[in-house]
């Protein structure tokens, strides 16, 4: 079935008037959506728009306050994942739910076998998995151990798992977050093939380009409401972006400016932590320049960030900051030297959720004379500093005494920005700075990074979002299994080339993409 006649095919799934409240928050507000046989519908929305809540209701994880769900015309009992599975709804989560130490086959048949039968029908199951893999073009070895698979292969296993359970409606939650551009394209091809064979697909994403490339129809959620539903044909990125955010957004632009002197130089760095490693890594950060680091998640990005954060001491190689070699870097030393560090995980590393805004904004500076005397902290000054950040960075919170846990992701990030930008840093290390933020907050973070660049700071931007990377960076390098590619000027970068490098081409031990 092709997308032309999908409009007339029978309706397989109908969500009618779904409303879900969490306390005062209305996560889904009277959302109605239909899915036809052989159709790919993109569910587009910012973080917090209600996409995940809606899918959790569909899959039985939550019970809707109002509304009903029908599959093939039969009402689906609320709050039962088992019923959803039985009705043929399959879900591929953003974070895979595979047991690493089991084989592909074990993972696929897990939960489908009766508990008390001694012999499982493994051979029959294996044949069926092979058959499905063949039919849908999802090449995976059923006997391979999951831990040995690449991220793209793991995703295929997740999809196979759903197909094995005879899913007819497949929900994919942000499926491209962990893929290289080439892998994403190949996934879209596969999805088209599924649709042609009569499967219906809900494709959840906040990336406009993907929705346009992969879907027949797009439904846009904003603030819990379904604000638009239209065929992809004829829709443009700008329309969709505006629908998603509710206002026009002007992406920040980096004005060209000459690069300054090298502020931080890493040369021949090797480091290791668990499965992550860095090998003979050299780079130079110049003032007034943004260097973007691209790479599939888990290829050494967080180790590189921790190195520059002062959390990791390199085994070999030298770090030279403003002409001085750093012997044993520490977080305090890096902060004192003017390194602004925006951590990858705001909740785990950036902030202490159970402490107040005041307590959090001084966490890097509480021992400086500005905030403490003789081992006692001047909480009045800390409070003033917090108020200043709240005002200057437009942090929405009840006040300096509020526990940080209650803030939204965007406001947390603004708080971190306020903390690290306070002392006019010479280096800004931004590790996934916009992950999980809504479009408004993303724009704000981007503006701040470009403002730092304009002031002459060197910005190291580590991001898995290629759009972000390419719109902000002056130069780009790719990290793969702890090695860094040569630095390429933005003007010379092509997405195709970047994608190949992210998959390991051009690296010493190159090959297919593996993520730790």
């Amino acid at each position, binding site marked *: 079935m092709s997308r032309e006649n999908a409009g007339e095919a029978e309706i397989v799934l109908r969500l009618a008037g779904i409303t879900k409240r969490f*306390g005062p928050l209305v996560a889904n507000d009277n959302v109605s959506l239909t899915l036809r046989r052989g159709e790919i519908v993109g569910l587009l929305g910012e973080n917090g728009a209600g996409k995940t809540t809606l899918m959790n209701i569909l899959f039985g994880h939550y019970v809707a306050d109002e509304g009903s769900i029908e599959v093939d015309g039969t009402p689906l009992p609320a709050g039962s994942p088992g019923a959803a599975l039985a009705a043929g709804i399959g879900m591929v989560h953003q974070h895979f739910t595979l047991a690493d130490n089991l084989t592909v086959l074990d993972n696929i048949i897990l939960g489908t076998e009766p508990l008390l039968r001694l012999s499982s029908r493994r051979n029959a199951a294996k044949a069926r998995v092979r058959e499905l893999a063949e039919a849908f073009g999802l090449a995976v070895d059923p006997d391979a151990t999951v831990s040995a698979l690449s991220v793209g292969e793991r995703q295929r296993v997740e999809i196979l798992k759903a197909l094995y359970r005879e899913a007819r409606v497949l929900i994919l939650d942000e499926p491209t977050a962990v893929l290289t551009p080439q892998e994403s394209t190949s996934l879209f091809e596969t999805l088209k093939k599924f649709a042609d064979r009569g499967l219906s697909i809900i494709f959840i994403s906040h990336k406009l380009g993907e929705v346009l490339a992969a879907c027949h129809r797009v439904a846009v959620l904003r603030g819990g409401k379904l604000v638009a539903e239209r065929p992809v044909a004829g829709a443009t990125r700008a329309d969709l972006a505006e629908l998603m955010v509710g206002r026009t957004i002007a992406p920040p632009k980096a004005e060209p400016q000459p690069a300054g002197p090298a502020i931080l130089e890493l040369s021949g760095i090797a480091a290791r932590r668990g499965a992550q490693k860095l090998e003979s890594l050299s780079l130079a950060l110049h003032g007034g320049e943004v260097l973007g680091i691209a790479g599939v998640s888990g290829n050494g990005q967080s180790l590189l960030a921790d190195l520059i954060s002062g959390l990791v001491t390199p085994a070999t190689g030298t770090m030279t900051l403003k002409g001085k070699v750093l012997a044993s870097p520490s977080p305090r030393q890096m902060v004192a030297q003017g390194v602004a*560090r925006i951590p990858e995980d705001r909740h785990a*590393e*950036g902030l*202490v959720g159970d402490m107040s805004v005041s307590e959090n904004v001084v966490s890097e500076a509480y021992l400086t004379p500005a905030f403490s005397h003789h081992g006692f902290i001047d*909480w009045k000054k800390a409070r003033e500093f917090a108020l200043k950040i709240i005002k200057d960075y437009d942090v929405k919170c009840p006040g300096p005494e509020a526990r940080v846990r209650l803030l939204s992701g965007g406001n947390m990030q603004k708080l971190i920005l306020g903390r690290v930008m306070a002392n006019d840093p010479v280096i800004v290390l931004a590790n996934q700075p916009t992950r999980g933020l809504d479009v408004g907050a993303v724009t704000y973070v981007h503006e701040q990074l470009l403002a730092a660049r304009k002031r002459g700071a060197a910005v190291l931007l580590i991001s898995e979002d290629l759009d972000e990377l390419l719109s902000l960076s002056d130069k780009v390098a790719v990290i793969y299994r702890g090695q860094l590619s040569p630095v390429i000027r933005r003007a010379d970068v092509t997405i195709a080339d970047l994608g190949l490098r992210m998959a390991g081409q051009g690296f010493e031990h190159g090959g297919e993409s593996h993520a730790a």
Partner: protein
Amino acid sequence: MVGNPMRLEPREQRSLAVILGYPLVALAVAAAFCAILVMFSGANPLSVFGLMVKGALGTQFAFLETLTRATPLIFTGLAAAVAFRAKLWNIGGEAQLYAGAVMTVVFGTGLLPLPWPVLIPVLMVAAMLGGAIMLSIPTFLKTRFGVDEVVTTLLINFIAILFVSMLLEGVLKDPMGLGWPQSKKVIADAQLGKLVQGKRLHFGFVIALLAALAIWVIDRRSALGYEMRAVGHNPKAAAFAGIPVNRVLAKTALLSGGLAGLAGYSEVAGLKGNLTLDLSPGFGYTGIVVAMLAMLHPLGVVAAAIFVAAVFVGADAMSRTAGVPSYIAHVMVAASLLCMVTAVMLTRYRLRWR
């Protein structure tokens, strides 16, 4: 959350009424539970509770006895509260208390013939050092090798008590003790004076109050208190911000162990005069209960210690007249703790049925 009819939702705001009201409700629930047990043993709960209150607070003697019993609990409660704030799970208050007591009798029985204004501070520092060292070993093992401190601090209790037993049968044995395993009495200059002439309440109670006040100031105002809280809530974020997590844990261990060591000093120099194997009927463990009841608040520890002491003292007095076993005290304290822990959780989360 999946398929569960009951779940917990974080409260956005905690009103003062909730923060103060829930613990009171918790104590009421605990009392109601204990009332049922009392009825099972054939007594009237109201009269039993009345006797307990009278036995704990009713007379000057009873009240002073309660405060005397509360004194070591304030120290061990503070020790637990300080450590738990930093998520250093110090279960070894008992060992640290005995270490403090051993230091007291080693230096306080004549080895240092100093006048009291010098000797008492010296002995206090020595006792604190004893307790501090006792907790520093497990803390070092934790930060260096990742050994779980719950296990090590708990097991060190038994080692410490057996070690004290060895000392009391050996080098520390009082030659004039008629063969009993007990140490010599500390000299007069080492002793803490009585607060009320002819009663058991001693100056250690005042020291305990001052310690609670000092810990409160450290917790709220000092950089160390800030570091300990940050490390306790989120060690990863603390390390990222540049707080030296292991060093903070080491300092926490010194402070916590030192406080428990002071309990040992206060009991020997203020109450018993010498060291015996029954110096502590589990003050180290009860300190954990005290700290939890106080929600780790240093000033709350004082109130919680007096409450727990009152329950024990009151139950002793009650059992003599009402014929209900004084074990009811343990049940009451345990029930109060469980209810309080539940109440504390309910001040943070609200229960939702779907």
